[in-house]
């Protein structure tokens, strides 16, 4: 049987960036094929070429053995390719049925195709365990179900080849397992699945074969059964990598930061943080696990003094700091690495040395009175660049021109090099490549060992488990459980993340 997809010498440039270099890829029909690579390795570009979002500069695409030109998404759909994008391509105010019908209406009047689409949805629901209410408004559905709508959209259009781009980023571990079950069911029906992810655990769990991309090139192909996460990681980075973080048991001291009964409501009055109490001791890392959007962001903002809680009390070293500003907290030795470096951590059009000073511009070391001493600012930036191995090491370059990992290092260097007593850090490695992750993790552990108290919020459960000494799980704004990292596992944490509380578990 001919391979479902065969790419021969596919090449794509965006100006000076060579996003895909001479890519060869064979995806066998009826298999689940993983594609891994760091951010910017060219995975998404390659899939966008396959789905007709961009046209390749050179190369050939063969579908089921026949050469095809795919110039638009319409061509891709006609060739039997369906895609589930990382950021869902859904129209939120419309119903599930309208979203599924969009582009496949079956006639000029909606009524002409509605009944057939309903029947097809019901049929697919039964066949693959994808049941859904066709009249529900998509925006009201939880993300897991929204993803289901995306998959149904592709299947209703008759997709035989399904591409999923980072599908588990928004799912709880249990939802991810459900998704994998469904992918296996699709494979059993003879469909071909391409899974793009950076989570090696998922690749090992569900794929038949895996291809590795690095800097725009396809560098290796493996049979999943004959490789290991370690080997894949090394192929992705191009050198041996430590996946496990080496650390000694924590020696927690006195309480550095404590919160009691914090409540943070959003504009419509919903408690995003719902009576959260926690304490953080000197010399330990406390991880806050949870699916994105369960109150972790609001908790970070409250603790960092950016959005004061409506109820509750925060103490730093025994002193009440509930109503203090971020600047006052910084002076008291509380540093904050925000979750979204583009939104809160950096000013992208600024030079590196300017971004490296944000929040500390009043420090006398950077000049006296209203004036900044630019030489001192730049000298300080250069020291941090060296200490954190920021690439390229140029403090005059615009912040926007650094890669995600190096931008994150700029923020971390700014906040961590002042030896704060308490560090609150959100998503330290989001969009950061494996090499930089390794570096950041080592730094966090070193800071802990030097006696800092660290609160780590991350949606990456692996990261929480690797770094934390204690783990708090948040779901729906509440803390649904607390575990010592040594005594728990992903399954138990997954249940807590899904809101299954102590008693029920």
């Amino acid at each position, binding site marked *: 049987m001919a391979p479902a997809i065969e790419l021969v010498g596919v090449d794509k440039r965006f100006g000076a960036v060579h996003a895909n270099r001479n890519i060869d890829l064979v995806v066998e029909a009826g298999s689940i094929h993983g594609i891994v690579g760091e951010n910017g390795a060219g995975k998404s570009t390659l899939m966008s070429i396959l789905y007709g979002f961009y046209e390749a500069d050179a190369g050939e695409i063969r579908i089921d053995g026949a050469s095809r030109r795919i110039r638009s998404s319409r061509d891709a759909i006609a060739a039997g390719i369906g*895609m589930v994008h990382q950021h869902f*391509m859904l*129209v*939120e*105010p*419309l119903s599930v049925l309208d979203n599924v*019908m*969009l*582009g496949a209406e079956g006639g000029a009047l909606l009524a002409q195709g509605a009944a057939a689409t309903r029947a097809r949805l019901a049929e697919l629901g039964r066949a693959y365990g994808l049941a859904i209410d066709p009249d529900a408004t998509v925006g009201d559905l939880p993300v897991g179900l929204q993803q289901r709508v995306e998959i149904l959209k592709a299947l209703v259009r008759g997709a035989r080849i399904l591409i999923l781009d980072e599908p588990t980023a928004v799912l709880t571990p249990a939802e991810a397992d459900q998704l994998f079950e469904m992918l296996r069911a699709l494979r059993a029906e003879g469909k071909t699945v391409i899974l793009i992810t950076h989570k090696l655990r998922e690749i090992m769990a569900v794929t038949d074969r895996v291809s590795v991309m690095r800097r725009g090139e396809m560098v290796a192909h493996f049979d999943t059964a004959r490789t290991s996460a370690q080997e894949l990681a090394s192929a992705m980075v191009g050198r041996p990598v430590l996946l496990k973080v080496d650390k000694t048991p924590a020696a927690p001291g006195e309480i550095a930061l404590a919160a009691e009964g914090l409540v943070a409501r959003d504009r419509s009055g919903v408690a995003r943080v719902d009576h959260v109490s926690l304490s953080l001791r000197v010399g330990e890392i406390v991880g806050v696990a949870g699916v994105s959007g369960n109150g972790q962001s609001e908790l970070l903002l409250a603790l960092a003094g950016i959005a004061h809680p409506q109820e509750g009390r925060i103490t730093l070293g025994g002193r009440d700091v509930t109503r203090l500003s971020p600047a006052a907290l910084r002076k008291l030795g509380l540093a904050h690495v925000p979750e979204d470096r583009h939104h809160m951590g950096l000013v992208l059009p600024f030079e590196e040395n300017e971004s490296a000073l944000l929040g500390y511009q009043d420090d006398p070391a950077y000049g006296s009175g209203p004036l900044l001493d630019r030489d001192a600012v730049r000298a300080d930036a250069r020291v941090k660049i060296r200490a954190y191995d920021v690439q390229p090491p140029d403090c005059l370059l615009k912040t926007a021109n650094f890669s995600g990992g190096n931008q994150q290092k700029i923020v971390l260097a700014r906040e961590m090099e002042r030896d704060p007593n308490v560090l609150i850090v959100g998503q330290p490695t989001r969009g950061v490549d494996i090499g930089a992750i390794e570096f950041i993790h080592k730094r966090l552990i070193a800071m802990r060992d030097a006696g800092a108290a660290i609160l780590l919020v991350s949606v990456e459960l692996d990261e929480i488990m690797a770094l934390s000494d204690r783990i708090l799980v948040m779901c729906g704004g509440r803390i649904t459980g607390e575990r010592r990292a040594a005594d728990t596992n992903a399954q138990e944490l997954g249940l807590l993340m899904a809101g299954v509380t102590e008693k029920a578990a």
Partner: protein
Amino acid sequence: MTETIDNAVFVLASALRLAVPLLLACLAGLWSERSGVVDIGLEGKMLGAAFAAGAAAAVTGNAWVGLAAGVAASVALGLVHGYASIDQRGNQIVSGTAINMIAVGLTALLGAAWFGQGGRTPPLEGAARFQPIALPGADAAAAIPVLGPIYRSLISGQDALTWLALAAAPLTAFVLYRTRFGLRLRAVGENPAAVDTAGISVRALRYAGVVICGALCGVAGAYLSVAQAAGFLPQMTAGKGFIALAALVFAKWRPGAALATCFLFGLLDAAAIRLQGVELPLVGQVPVQAIQALPYLLTVVLLAGFIGRAIPPRASGVPYVKER
């Protein structure tokens, strides 16, 4: 009793006349914004259309030619806005404002140059103007209490463009909610990426929205100069395009609500005219400006509290760029 009914019918008929251009412009804005293109240039398009319609009707002596000229002028202005907003991904507010300014200047300039009547177009008579259409038996029915005067003065005696405007609202609702084109148009105003990945052209849909908007603005403009008045006057739109935008927000971008809102605004306008110089008990003579301000005040007050948040189509005003 009879006098009260006559009075009421008079105010209602006047409200309808004032509501027609608002309704057409409001539906025009609805088509554009539902497709994701914010159109602050309704006013300018209406004004341009009013001039083109007035001029063409005066020259040819045919109201329908006037209408066609008005629609063509308005669609042409709409295409300029479309090119700036869709192809060039320009700022849609700036482009719309530019169209408003161009329309004011150009109509006055061309009017003065062509007709030499201070920017006016020559007065229209007979077939050069849309005339009231008398329905059968209107006069005979007048004797029937209540229903008679309503039939004679409110339902009968409307011109073709009024009927067109009243039909446009349900037609818009039908196309928007019941057809393939409507579904795609609603989707492209909310999330163009979803439309693009479904293999549908975002550009074509947005141009369609802009062209329909232009056509409806054209009818609105033609109504002003060739039906309501007998010729074009400089700046005769007098802010109606902006009131139509307020009505669009008030109606939350829904065609049924747009119909009701525009009639309400027309009613307030008619009341303002009726109340000029009238002494009200306790209040005394109400300044006409206060009543003329009512539609605006109503929009602000009701939007602030009573009808909840008006959420525009999410992608309206945002040019679509394929992410790299």
